[in-house]
């Protein structure tokens, strides 16, 4: 409980948590508040916000309800964020742990692979994967996860490199403990905090990448996502800039919330840095 209280002592972290809960609530209530297909026509095209009852945020260039798209878009962003992050962190921890613990040739080989993946611009690789595997939204989440594992891997490896020569790990080896047990039960718990903090970065980037793909018109066109809406708004930018502006604000709020929560967790796990 002390941890919760310490988290609550940071205003920024609390704001982040509240914003994140709001976004989650939006995603959860989308089907209930906007039961209709968000991509169906709801009114006259380009109805400005706050002018018509029932269409609080107006309509886009073909007359679809912007508010409905934003609420349903929250589901897409969160889904992509969670799935992609899970995959990226999972691969990253595995690669980083094995690489850092064993060192030597194993490390060299895995690090070459990591370097290769870091050299290819991940967004361009993403474009290629979208062409190959299609742009269905779950595929998209998997693919984004598959290009985002390098940073968590490096982070985990760095932690393992320092921890593996700590005396407490050596003592486990002298007690005859098997490698797998040392890696996952002895070292990993100590190596996790910085990686957990990094979860927020991976998730924020995943959401941004999905929205960028959608903005370029390369995401799933059959779902309501924030990026799709901005891409649509771009075509009417000069006459109705709010179509692009509103979903952008939703992205900012979501990413900001994730970053703030990440920061709060960081201060919690590394109290040394948080203290003045």
């Amino acid at each position, binding site marked *: 409980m002390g941890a919760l209280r310490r988290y609550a002592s940071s205003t920024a972290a609390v704001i982040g948590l509240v914003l994140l809960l709001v976004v989650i609530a939006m995603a959860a209530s989308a089907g209930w508040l906007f039961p209709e297909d968000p991509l169906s026509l709801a009114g006259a095209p380009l109805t400005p916000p706050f002018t018509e009852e029932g269409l609080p945020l107006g309509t886009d260039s073909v007359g679809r309800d912007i508010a409905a798209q934003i609420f349903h878009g929250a589901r897409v962003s969160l889904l992509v964020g969670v799935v992609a992050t899970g995959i990226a962190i999972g691969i990253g921890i595995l690669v980083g742990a094995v690489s850092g613990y064993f060192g030597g040739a194993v490390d060299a080989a895995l690090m070459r692979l990591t370097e290769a993946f870091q*050299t290819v611009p*991940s967004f361009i690789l993403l474009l290629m994967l979208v062409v190959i595997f299609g742009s269905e939204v779950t595929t998209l989440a998997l693919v984004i996860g598959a290009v985002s594992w390098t940073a968590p891997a490096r982070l985990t490896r760095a932690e393992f490199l320092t921890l593996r020569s700590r005396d407490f790990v050596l003592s486990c080896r002298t007690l005859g403990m098997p490698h797998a047990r040392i890696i996952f039960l002895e070292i990993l718990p100590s190596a996790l905090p910085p990686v957990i903090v990094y979860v927020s970065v991976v998730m924020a980037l995943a959401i941004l990448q999905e929205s960028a793909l959608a903005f370029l018109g390369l995401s799933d066109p059959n779902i309501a996502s924030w990026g799709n809406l901005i891409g649509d708004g*771009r075509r009417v*930018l000069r006459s109705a800039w709010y179509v692009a502006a509103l979903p952008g604000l939703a*992205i900012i709020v979501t990413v*900001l919330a994730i970053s703030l929560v990440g920061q709060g967790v960081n201060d919690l796990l590394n109290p040394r840095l948080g203290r003045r």
Partner: protein
Amino acid sequence: MRILRLVLRRLSLSIPCLGIILAVLFFLLQLAPGDAVDALIGQMGTSDDTLSKLLRSYYGLDGSVVGQFTGYVGRLATLDLGLSIAYGKPVIDLILERLPVTVVLMVTSMAMAFTAGCVVGVIAARYVHRWPDTIISVLGMLVYSMPSFWFGLMAIVLFAVTLGWLPAGGISDLRAGHTGIAHLLDMAKHLVMPALTLGLIFFAVYLRVMRTAMVEVMTLDFMRTARAKGLQERAVLFRHALRNALLPMVTIAGLHASSMLGGAVVVESVFSLPGLGRLAQEAVVQRDLNMLLGITVMSSVLVIAVNLVIDIIYARLDPRIDVGA
């Protein structure tokens, strides 16, 4: 001499790296439903076996995967990336045509983000945990949360549509027909918004790194030595802290070179710049896998080149870098 050895070693490391990249990409292409020829034939609306066989041998897509791979690597050595199916031109020509815009965009953004990140980061570190630091951190986080394409669109609304200060897109104003210096100035004007847009998120990253690095350097023992020598606070900051804090900054700049190139795809699209990123987007739309492969390979080469330059800068800053045998 030390630098030369460093360059040679980095190059020798980047060749296997490029090899792995190519192998992974080839493996992925095998998973694609249908190849470029299928896409082409699909566009033509026919289904003729002899035609597709002919086209496959023309584009080098017949034979085994291994054969295709070795063939591709062999041709790559002579900078031959094959033909673009969508454009019917050699991929390398298309890439070289588009590359300069992307390079200029990247270099400008990086320089702007790096410089601004340093300056603002130092200021934040100077007032760590006090209000200027808090304001800077909040702004940084806000900037970091903004999708670059959205920022770009909003900048267009404000600076191009409403205020009319800057052009909304393109690399130069063709109708004006500028030459010489006027042409360069015109291009610079076209680049202001794209470079800012691309650089913004990296500015937020650099700013945070610089702040942390400065705060950390300030606690190191040699800072105390410098003070004990009688150095005044400002000199301690500039002579001893700054250069040490730049080391993680340079490392981060290297790590972000590839994501910057990825970001360029989106920014080029927002501002209709004829760069590599736009080419990639077109390749996706046309399902031109061969061109996409070429772009991916060449952008990796570009990233390797940028990292080489950054490694040299790092080695110049830090005498401890052991370039080894």
